[in-house]
């Protein structure tokens, strides 16, 4: 058995490594997404500002499964929103298929941290929302919609309204809704955080299957280090706010992976200490900030 460190290899951040490009092309696959020196600062009304992301750069190949790890408030959601075109960066560029993005589009679908279902539509109509907007006739949709609802285990709830669903069920509808659009890039913001362990495990397996079947490029934000290594080909570790790329791990354990796999658990242990450092740094920064404010 090869050593663990060979299977999960950590590299320094793409931003630090120079030049960052060649390593990604060894398989000859096309570059899907390129994030180039992205910076985002939020301005508040009281003339203060929060730097959310600073000079972040990375590349993603077509069909790669990337997980983003980082302490709370480091700008992970912001990064996904920028890539989705829902917000504008202060500097830097985002290229999709070598073209700079100008706004939101159905090729990059976000699954938000909160489910964001529409309460005026039932489960089925929520899932078909994107297809409706694209003008796909209802009769051509129903098979696909049922298929994805079945996948998330909610086909018997297709007529239910959102107020009749639990938090985890809502999140699963949101998942089905995004998958039904079959986007090129799927941007998932802690989609499984509200689920019970069994459902989550099941969805981990399903996600790996869907991903292998469809070849979708996935960016998956999570707080759960093990989850990141279950799903990701690569795991990007962001630093405390403002988010920068701190480290990058490559995970080559065979799929389908499971969150309780021995090899995975062992490998992740090493990574945890890195993350702990970051969380501590984040908290310390906050404390310093408070002292300054006092």
């Amino acid at each position, binding site marked *: 058995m090869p050593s663990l460190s060979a299977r999960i290899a950590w590299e320094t951040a793409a931003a630090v490594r120079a030049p960052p490009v060649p390593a990604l092309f060894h398989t000859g696959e096309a570059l899907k997404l390129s994030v180039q020196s992205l910076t985002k600062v939020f301005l508040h009304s009281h003339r203060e500002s929060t730097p959310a992301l600073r000079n972040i750069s990375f590349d993603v190949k077509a069909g790669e499964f990337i997980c983003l790890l980082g302490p709370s408030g480091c700008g992970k959601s912001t990064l996904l*929103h920028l890539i*989705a*075109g*829902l917000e504008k960066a202060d500097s830097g560029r985002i290229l999709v298929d070598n073209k700079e993005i100008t706004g*939101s*589009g*159905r090729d*990059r*679908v*976000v699954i*938000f941290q*909160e489910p*964001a279902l*529409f*309460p*005026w539509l039932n489960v089925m109509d929520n899932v078909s*929302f*994107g297809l*409706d*907007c*694209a003008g796909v006739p209802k009769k051509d949709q129903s098979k696909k919609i049922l298929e994805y609802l079945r996948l998330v285990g909610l086909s018997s709830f297709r007529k239910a*309204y*959102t*107020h009749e669903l639990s938090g985890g069920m809502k999140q699963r509808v949101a998942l089905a*809704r*995004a998958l039904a*659009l079959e986007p090129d890039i799927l941007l998932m913001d802690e989609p499984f955080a509200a689920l019970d362990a069994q459902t989550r495990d099941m969805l981990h397996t399903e996600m790996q299957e869907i991903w292998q079947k469809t070849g979708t490029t996935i960016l998956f934000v999570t707080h759960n280090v093990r989850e990141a290594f279950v799903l990701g080909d690569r795991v990007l570790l962001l630093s405390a706010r403002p988010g920068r790329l701190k480290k990058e791990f490559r995970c080559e354990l065979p799929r389908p992976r499971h969150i309780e796999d021995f090899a995975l658990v062992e490998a992740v242990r090493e990574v945890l200490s890195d993350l702990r450092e970051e969380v501590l740094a984040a908290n310390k920064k906050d404390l310093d900030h408070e002292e300054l404010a006092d």
Partner: protein
Amino acid sequence: MKNWLTRIGFFGLLIILWEVVARLEIWPGYIFPSFTSVLASMWYGFADGSYPLAILISLRRLAVGYGISLLLGITLGLFVGRIPIVQKTVGSVILGLQALPSVCWLPLALLWFGLSEKAIIFVVIMGAVLSISLSTADGIRNTPPLFLQAAKTMGAAGFQLYSRVILPAALPSIVSGMKLGWSFAWRSLMAGELLYYGGMASLGHLLTMGRELNDMAQVISVMLMIVLIGLLVDFLVFAPVEVRIRERWGLHTSR
């Protein structure tokens, strides 16, 4: 269920008390008519067809005025809610005009439209349109940004954002505006009809006639009908819609 019994019991008692006091004849009948004489007056009114006709005339005016108010109010609200400059200008005018009781528009309306149906319908519109547009604007301004982001990421754009997200999201506000608008429209109509006859025996006109004939029983029976119609529409139309929407939108019902 128990609530209903309490209510019915209370009204029953009130009516008995009313009847007893009237039978004591402390005041003459044209000042304090008995409940039974009010009922009789209502009976005659329905029997000779004057009440149904009056109700029809008033409701027709209301339907036209309220319908136009809905169209105008929701459209106006859409612009006020979405476009900041319209909000600052037109929005503040609407807010200001709300301080004016709508019947004060009657003299102006009579000068503009002459002695015609248009004048009274104009008053009804001025009564309802402001609150409808304000609530609509409010609901639209408060569309959760997350809904818009979700719609955009799923490819909705332009007009679709309005028809599929912004308007539905504002529906609870729009409906409460419609309800408010309805009661304002009803009040404005009655005030208008009291002041202006217009050659039609409307509900408001029946009230005036009752006064002129010293027929207090008729005055009270017409008043009762006005109350009942207002309540009935609220009970049959707005209350069920509102309850359903609040439930579906996950807002808490306070009933």
